[in-house]
């Protein structure tokens, strides 16, 4: 019982880990750091070939027949070593034609035929069902072995009822997991990067687990391989088994299963998925052609040692199919069977994930959606939201596939060993080989031929392998086997037409392939290919370069606008613009689309929906048949693989456009700044030239006119001195301004009393006011006004404002005032005058550089001129001290009112942490 809870936790933990790996790989892929771009990952993903059947069944088979199990691995080894060029060719075609599955591949080869795609899908579902059953069986079996040990595992399912059957729940849990795992991104596309990463991980786990068991059996249990073999030599089984002769069917059986495995290696939907569809770089194929055989070698290395060790342990090890588990249980540490369980689980789930996802894609793309496309009475166009429907189709497909697998398992599974079930599926998948391979080399292979071959082949398969299974399980009359259908001996399923002495698989393979190839060739020879078929056949057989596509592929006509609307819906605006670029002139939506444009549109759609559906969609636009455009558009809206890719492209291009706009804005700002700088330089030079003009003129006058009287000479010299001072001041101010604007004005803020500073300032301008005949009123709080500021700079500002005010105060009877008061956590220091005031529209302009204040009512130009920099500098200083400086109308005196607002400083106490940065004073 101790295993019960532990296995539960371990299994769920493992599934969660897979999920995390897939999500992580997806995230990396989205960021452009793909984790699957290596030949090693490609190889490991191909190793999904090794399922629970390998993990448990190989040992079982080796225990009965010795090295015979190897043929299942030698087939793919040879296929990979010698068939990599064939594989590369398929990858290239699949990429060029945007193939999504093996059903799509075959359908596209034979003129993008829906019916062929549907047929392949049906055959795949029926054929693979036993294989999925096998994985379910393996999981429940391993669980049963671990929990029941040392008793023999009891897995009699039906007797206990479906609901109490563990494998039923396993199937359901897995269905949920695969739905979560494989249909996470169904809304927009099929992202398989995560799946491939998870599968590669699983391949590592199962290899490590198997090697661990093998090493334990060989070295820990029996010391060395030599010793193990020596002790095994005494086994009675070795006499009857372990030789070519022990293989059912003998040498013929070897060849048969070699061929079977070699073909299935390419044609099993999951293998096609990882080998062809998920290939990201065709150079990986070359490396995988020897890496994958190495993987197979590694995982098979210990099959015989484990089998021998199991046999030597005798009753303690029980059923040979469970040796991988029971060796650890019987004689090893507890973690070993647990590790083996995880290995078996990874082998089984890996297969189920890829197979189910591949099949569900095929079902939705080739069975359900083409059907819905044709059913006008469904009124799909009246439904706005179809993504839910498609999501549902895929999910139901996943559940259905697993439940069918379960059903097969429940009905038939018990009477077959693991290996037997697997080979039944292999034989079904092998039926795809003739139309796939002949289609690649024989241009004459026609759609009708492919369909006839496939139907004939699968019927023979069903008769020679599937039905006997039902018969053996008691669901059909067992006399079918012994007497043949209708009592006709030559119809005996295992000895069709009297062919006896072969093992059942070679027998079934021989007859089914014979019928398959015969019908394919025969019917093809007598059927006419339509134009599209001819084109596709030429493309697939390499007789026609894809670039030389005939332009008359489409008979009908359509408008560019319609084509664009279709593409836009499925592939996004960017791809549409790329596929059918708009001319520079007026809108060309109403012009007829060219044949190249229609072909390009079809190619692009095929990548998203499969060739057949793409053809239906294009058909609907080009000929206006079957469905109106709107209805077609709403269907399959979200199944597209390229849609999300394109959406991302579109996002990127939006982003680029946004960045472009930002750049443009920044550039405009720069240009504006540049213009402002030029203006500033011009103004500076203007302002510098003015005093310089006086200086030079009077200096020259004094030089050239020795007879000027002393009083005049003194006056002129005074002017020279004053103008020089003005020049120096101007330069200082320009530098101040430059420092302020670049943020390099050295400010030394310290706690100070603003009232005191204001009083000092009034003293500094006192004589100036008296000189100008201006009366100065001062109103300052007596208990101080604490602020944090640079005293010198702030005083410069206050004096500047007072100086300005005294300049612009009324003449005569000028009055100015300085007023300081608290206001909402700030101190407001205001300087007012009774002059003409400043018009409101000038309030901000006076803070512009070199702006000369023109006070209203001052047109005689008698006021002293400033530099036009005092106010901008003052505002800059106040801003740098964290305050504000603005202008408003003086209500009291009627002129202008300048207000400096500075934040009130925190009370100056030792406890205040905010005050700590202040210099001690």
């Amino acid at each position: 019982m101790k295993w019960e809870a532990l296995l539960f936790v371990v299994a769920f933990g493992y599934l969660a880990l897979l999920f995390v790996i897939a999500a992580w790989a997806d995230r990396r892929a989205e960021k452009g750091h793909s984790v699957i771009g290596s030949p090693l990952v490609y190889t490991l993903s191909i190793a999904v070939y090794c399922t629970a059947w390998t993990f448990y069944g190989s040992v079982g088979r080796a225990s009965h027949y010795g090295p015979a199990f190897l043929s299942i691995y030698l087939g793919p080894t040879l296929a990979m070593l010698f068939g990599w060029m064939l594989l590369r060719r398929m990858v290239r075609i699949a990429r060029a034609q945007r193939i999504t599955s093996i059903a799509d591949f075959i359908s596209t080869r034979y003129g993008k035929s829906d019916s062929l795609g549907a047929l392949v899908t049906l055959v795949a579902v029926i054929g693979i069902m036993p294989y999925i059953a096998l994985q379910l069986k393996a999981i429940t079996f391993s669980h049963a072995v671990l929990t029941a040990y040392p008793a023999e595992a009891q897995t009699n399912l039906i007797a206990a009822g479906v609901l109490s059957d563990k494998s039923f729940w396993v199937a359901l849990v897995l269905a949920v997991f695969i739905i979560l795992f494989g249909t996470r991104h169904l809304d927009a596309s099929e992202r398989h990067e995560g799946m491939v990463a998870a599968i590669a991980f699983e391949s590592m786990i199962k290899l490590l687990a198997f090697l661990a068991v093998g090493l334990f059996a060989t070295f820990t249990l029996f010391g060395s391989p030599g010793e193990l073999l020596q002790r095994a030599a005494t086994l009675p089984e070795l006499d009857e088994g372990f030789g070519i002769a022990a293989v059912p069917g003998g040498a013929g059986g070897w060849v048969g299963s070699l061929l079977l495995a070699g073909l299935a290696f390419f044609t099993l939907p999951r293998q096609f998925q990882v080998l062809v569809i998920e290939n990201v770089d065709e150079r990986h194929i070359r490396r995988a052609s020897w890496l994958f055989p190495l993987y197979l070698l590694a995982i098979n290395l210990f099959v015989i040692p484990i089998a021998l060790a199991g046999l030597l342990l005798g009753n303690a090890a029980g059923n040979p199919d469970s040796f991988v588990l029971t060796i650890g249980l019987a004689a090893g540490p507890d973690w070993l069977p647990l590790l083996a369980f995880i290995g078996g689980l990874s082998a089984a789930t890996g297969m189920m994930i890829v197979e189910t996802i591949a099949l569900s894609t095929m079902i939705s793309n080739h069975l359900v959606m083409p059907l819905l496309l044709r059913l006008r009475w469904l009124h799909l166009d009246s439904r706005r939201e179809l993504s839910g429907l498609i999501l549902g189709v895929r999910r139901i497909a996943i559940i259905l596939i697993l439940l069918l697998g379960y059903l097969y398992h429940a009905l038939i599974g018990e009477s077959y060993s693991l290996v037997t079930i697997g080979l039944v599926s292999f034989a079904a998948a092998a039926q795809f080989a003739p139309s796939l391979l002949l289609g690649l080399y024989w241009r004459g292979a026609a759609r009708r031929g492919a369909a006839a071959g496939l139907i004939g082949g699968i019927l023979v398969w069903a008769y020679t392998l599937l039905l006997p299974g039902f018969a053996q399980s008691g669901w059909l009359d067992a006399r079918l086997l012994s007497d043949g259908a209708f009592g006709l001996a030559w119809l005996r399923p295992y000895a069709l037409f009297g062919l006896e002495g072969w093992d059942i698989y070679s027998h079934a393979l021989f007859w089914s392939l014979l019928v398959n190839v015969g019908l394919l060739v025969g019917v093809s020879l007598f059927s006419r290919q339509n134009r599209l078929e001819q084109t596709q056949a030429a493309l697939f057989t390499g007789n026609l370069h894809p670039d030389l596509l005939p332009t008359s592929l489409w008979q009908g006509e359509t408008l560019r606008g319609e084509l664009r609307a279709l593409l836009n819906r499925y592939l996004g605006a960017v791809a549409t613009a790329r596929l059918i670029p708009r001319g520079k002139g007026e809108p060309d939506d109403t012009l007829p689309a060219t044949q190249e444009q229609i072909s390009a549109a079809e190619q692009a759609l095929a990548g998203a929906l499969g060739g057949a559906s793409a053809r239906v969609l294009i058909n609907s636009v080009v000929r206006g048949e079957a469905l109106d455009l709107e209805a077609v558009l709403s269907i399959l809206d979200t199944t597209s693989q390229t849609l999300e890719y394109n959406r991302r492209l579109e996002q990127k291009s939006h982003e680029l456009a946004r960045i472009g706009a930002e750049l443009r804005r920044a550039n405009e700002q720069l240009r504006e700044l540049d213009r402002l700088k030029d203006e500033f330089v011009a103004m500076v030079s203007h302002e510098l030239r003015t005093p310089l003009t006086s200086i030079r003129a009077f200096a020259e006058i004094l030089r050239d006119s020795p007879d000027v009287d002393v009083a005049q000479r003194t006056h002129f010299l005074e002017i020279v001195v004053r103008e020089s001072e003005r020049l120096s001041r101007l330069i200082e101010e320009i530098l101040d301004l430059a420092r302020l604007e670049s943020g390099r004005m050295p400010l030394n803020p310290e706690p100070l009393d603003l009232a005191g500073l204001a009083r000092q300032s009034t003293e500094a301008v006192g004589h100036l006011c008296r000189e100008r005949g201006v009366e100065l009123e001062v109103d300052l709080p007596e208990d101080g006004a604490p602020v944090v500021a640079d005293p010198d700079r702030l005083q410069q500002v206050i004096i500047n404002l007072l100086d300005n005010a005294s300049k612009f105060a009324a003449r005569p009877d000028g009055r100015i005032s300085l007023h300081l008061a608290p206001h909402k956590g700030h101190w407001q220091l205001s300087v007012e005058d009774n002059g003409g005031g400043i018009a409101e529209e000038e309030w901000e302009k006076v803070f512009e550089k070199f702006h000369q204040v023109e006070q209203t009512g001052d047109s005689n130009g008698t006021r002293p001129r400033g530099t036009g920099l005092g106010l901008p500098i003052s505002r800059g200083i106040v801003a740098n001290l964290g305050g504000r400086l603005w202008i408003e109308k003086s209500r009291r005196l009627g002129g202008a009112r300048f207000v400096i607002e500075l934040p009130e400083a925190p009370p100056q106490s030792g406890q205040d942490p905010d005050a700590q940065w202040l210099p001690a004073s």
Partner: protein
Amino acid sequence: MTRVLVVDDEPNIVLSLEFLMRQAGFDVTTAGDGESALEQVQQQPPDLVLLDISLPGLSGFEVLERLRAQPEHARLPIIMLTAHGREVEREKGLALGADDYVTKPFSTQQLVEKVKQLLGLAN
């Protein structure tokens, strides 16, 4: 007596020009902005005008344009003064009918010579 009108908003510059013109033997009237310059031209028609471009109110260019618009002042010699060293302003001034163009700070000797030349007094 030959009369020169000096127009500039910078009192010290007006003072220096006034001194230079008197020293050269001319009668001098002055104005601090465009409006009063036009008034001066009406009241005491000068033989030559030294006209600053950047003036408060009417600019030097506007004064120039208005003067040239009056037939009696169409041939009045006018020298533009400017603290902007920009070529466009020089061209603009000449296009509007200025006789010469002087950039501040100027050489007093050259200015006096230019004035004499325009008045046909040069040797």
